[in-house]
């Protein structure tokens, strides 16, 4: 891997880290267990390692954003997570913040492209 690729990889990882939380919160209107969430997110283009997602779910639960329940009816016991009331509130605010970030970023990137086009 070239140095540029390595750097891009590292920066991309940092970039993704923050988006995972919003991604997870967006999918927990209905109860999901960890691995089903991995599949759902992956189907929608967000690849999360289980080793990252499971601890994250637990942290969000500890912060009071998620509620959890063990389901032992099926073949193997699974822990289902669901947005709590506080979680819904936090997600709604995060969503707005995210939209404004996207808007700002688009503006910034458009500008830089225009400048580059003008120069080059």
């Amino acid at each position, binding site marked *: 891997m070239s140095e540029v690729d390595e750097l891009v990889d590292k920066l991309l990882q940092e970039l993704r880290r923050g988006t995972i939380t919003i991604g997870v919160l967006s999918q927990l209107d209905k109860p999901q267990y*960890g691995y089903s969430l991995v599949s759902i997110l992956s189907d929608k283009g967000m690849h999360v390692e289980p*080793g990252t997602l*499971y*601890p994250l779910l*637990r942290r969000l639960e500890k912060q009071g954003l998620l509620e959890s329940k*063990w389901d032992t009816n099926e073949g*193997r016991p699974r822990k289902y997570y669901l947005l709590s009331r506080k979680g819904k509130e936090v997600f709604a605010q995060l969503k707005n913040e995210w939209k404004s970030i996207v808007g700002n970023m688009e503006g910034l990137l458009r500008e830089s492209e225009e400048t580059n086009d003008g120069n080059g």
Partner: protein
Amino acid sequence: MEMVERYIYAVTQRLPQGQRIDIAEELRGLIEDMLEERNDGRPVENTDIERVLIELGSPAELAEEYRGTSRFLVGPDLFPAYLSVMKMVLIITVSAMGIIFAVETILTPMSILHHFVDLLISLFVTATQVFAWITAGFAAAQYFGVAPPGLSGGYNRKNWNPSELPPVPDKKKQIKRGDVLTGIIFSILLLVLVRFSNHLFGVLLFEDHHLEATIPFLNEEKLLELMPLIYLMVAIGIVKEISKLMAGRWTKNLAIANLVINGAIFLLAMFILRDQAILNPDFVQQLSDSWGISKQQEEYTTIKTVWKLSYNLALAAFVITLLIDTVTGFYKAFRK
């Protein structure tokens, strides 16, 4: 599936007791889900398990994700202070033991080997103790998060205020670590001298390079009585040095504290020396006897005069030293 259990054990072992069972259960389910999906009905083999576990990451890494924070015995905030305290205390204890070794060797040079073995043993025991207790103290401060701001770099990490930034040290006001160390070691040296005073603190009479007898300056009986006060005085002196070290530079408050402590030392010393009872009352007689001088001779009067003069000079030197120390503190604190 044994490897799965080994993996789960390796992860949960690194987690707080209360979360272990829950996380173990969840991980077991996850690994089974992953195996099921990857194999699509094919029987599970060891290589499949290995692949899944490698994908999940090393147990230490996964456990760290679960804990959310790194764990320290002594964290990066406290570590510099930990190192410097450790260095200082070790230097002081090693010098104190060196002093005691030297004193014992002067007193009984024949058993130097014995003293040396003693020195090595107590060096080892004390160094271990010092290391353990300082580490325990800092580890406790780390664990409970109660480190005084002075130790952890001077200000609160989250709510820091620019006005709390420590000033760039002014070379002229700075308190040098070496000076503080010298002060403490000197106090200990003085204490050892006084403690062994009937052998050391007096006129040493040598015969063939061999300590024959000592005519002590101090009255052994009275000294034993006053020893607690002397310990107190040395302790106050050491507290003074340590507070100088913690302040790091001369300030108005430190100069005032220095004045108060020096005042206390002065009063204690005056109390210890009152009526000159602590002096050896027979000093002049004993010295004259050992030199074969009788009371009628002129030399006897000379010895007596010199003895009295020496006492007054020593007292004056002590008071002047205290005065200079106090005034220097104020001078350094207030000069620009």
